[in-house]
């Protein structure tokens, strides 16, 4: 990187620069006062910004029609995770058609880099990156999200339905 350092008499005259800068500021002030609707500032937290549908925020674990977790505990997300923030403990399910399911699924949000590799790796659409990002916590342990928080937090209203359905797949002969 090269840095251009001006060392002429012109660089010592800073007052004209300040006047130009103040001019720009005052112009914007009057523009905003005349036309407040076009003002780019929003009154957070009363108003919230609408992000695009592809925004990668906090994770959501999707559910099946009966409300149980879609996740099959294949650990591909945990394998693919560059920050190694996903911990899964798999177990045998009583239902032989389900076979394997996670009894524990934890994401360490402070480690997560929100790259979205987990939802790319997931073969059954069990994990998605949602629109939320404003998630305060009082200490580190509150950023360790478990199944209860990832799949059934109150604003998800009983869980997000996965697009992959076992019954439909079985009917179509897969």
């Amino acid at each position, binding site marked *: 990187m090269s840095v251009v350092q001006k060392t002429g008499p012109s660089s010592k005259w800073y007052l004209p620069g300040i006047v130009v800068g103040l001019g720009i500021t005052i112009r914007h002030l009057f523009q905003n006062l005349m036309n407040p609707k076009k003002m780019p500032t929003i009154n957070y937290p009363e108003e919230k910004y609408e992000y695009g549908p592809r925004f990668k925020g906090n994770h959501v674990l999707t559910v099946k029609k009966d409300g149980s977790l879609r996740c099959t*505990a294949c650990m591909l997300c945990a394998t693919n995770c560059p920050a190694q923030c996903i911990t899964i403990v*798999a177990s045998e399910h009583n239902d032989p058609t389900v*076979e394997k399911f996670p009894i524990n699924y934890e994401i360490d949000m402070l480690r997560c880099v929100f790259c979205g590799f987990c939802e790319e790796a997931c073969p059954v659409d069990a994990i998605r990156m949602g629109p939320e990002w404003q998630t305060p916590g009082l200490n580190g342990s509150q950023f360790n999200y478990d199944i209860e928080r990832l799949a059934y937090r109150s604003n998800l209203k009983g869980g997000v339905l996965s697009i992959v359905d076992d019954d439909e797949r079985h009917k179509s002969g897969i």
Partner: protein
Amino acid sequence: MPKCTINGKEIEVKEGTSIIQAMTENGQRIAHYCWHPGLSVAGVCRLCMVEIEGNPRVQIACNTMVTEGMKINNTSEKVKEAVKWGLDFHLINHPLDCPICDQAGECGLQDQYMEYGIYDSEMAERKVKKHKVVSLGDRIVLDSERCILCSRCVRFTDEVTGTKELGIFNRGDRSEIGTFEDRPLNNKYSINTVDICPVGALTSKDFRFKQRVWYLKDGDTICTGCSTGCNTKVYFNREGIFRIKPRFNKEVNGYWMCDEGRDLYKVFNRENRQIKALKKLGHSFEEMLPGAAAKDIFKNLSTSLQGASLVVTGQLSNEDLQKAFSFFTGALNSKQIYHWKNNPESWSDFDGLLLRGDKNPNTKGVEKCFEEFQIQTRFEDLEAALEQSQISTLVVMVPENIFAYPDLSAKLKHFGKAKNLILLSSSLVSLEDVRGGAHCWVVPMKTTIEKSGSFINHNGLTQFFKKVTTLVSEALTVDQALTLMGGGEVTVEMPHSSSETRFLVDYNHRSDQVKAEAYKKNEFSFKRGTL
């Protein structure tokens, strides 16, 4: 000795060698499922296709013997096409179970698909549904949909164990592996069928869903389950050991090992290990670090350690035994060393394949040590002396494989009749067992997979093993523990550290490292505050 050319490379093989044997022995890659070097030839998977010069069609390599001047090729387009379509037939009814299949990562189908397949299936028909999650026995689960009917497991129970529990039932695409009524797959070698299954049709109940195989590393060691001394591989990661598989050794175990030996990973894992040292003076227990406990023994018992008695078992390696024997006969001037034998009446038992009645890996080594140091003692004498409270200090090398010593806790209570009891134990010692005696120390020790050494098996064969991993880092080896108990010091040598720089941890140092003075001076600075 016929000579043949395989993929342009001329090799010489023994009479009666099949092409696939010749290829695998010479490091050539060939796709196969049903062929296994330890089993008979079935020729059912039709995947090991090779092109032989002068033969218009491709042939299977497992059932074709090498003849003089044969020119074999398995890299041509014709062969690849044949393997690809063979694989397509295998995958017609194979479910898309890879995410929940335990075999994923070490699966033959995945490997061959990545090498020969990569296509969309041409089948318009629905997949045939079969039984899933069928319990075949105490240790095995069957998933018929994943099975490709290579019949390796059926041949294993027919030929190796001779128990013949498995069979193939029904015909065509409805064929399934299964057991006969009232005859579950419960033989002592049943998990070998899981090892040889090229797909995830047979899975072990014990290992099922515990870990994905790509999270596991492996290391070579020797089984401590019995005096056969099978060569094994342990699979571990930082959470512990998860499974043990056999490693090929023609002279000892071939390709197989028993189910009992596979359970031994439990004695190595932290939950069954003594991690903190215990010290008991009178009735109060105190927890200590292992090294501190060994030093404490020297501090408290330095004089009464002289003439102490020692109990050894066949679970120790030759190196540990040598150290213990020379320490006791030398520094402690004692010849009171006793060989603790568990159920010696069944030691000569042998089931004809691998399992032996002597559940210690190094009984021969112990006997050799007793001969070498000319010690002739009887364990019964020690027990009688303990009964009459004649033993003042007793050091016990507690066996690491506690499954082989069912009377362990009763014996430990009996040992507690000594005035000072020192237990060098890798396995967890319950407080109840050591509550009885006067003074007691329990020092955590390292297990076989955490140290290097050698065992002498039933046949007199000395087998060496290397350290695989460390599970309880603070535990001591026999060498360290006895040195500390004898008043010595144990130093941990840093790699590449010389005597002058002992206090500087400089093992990242490289000889060609640039010195600080050699760095270019930073001439890149702004002058601030001038107008």
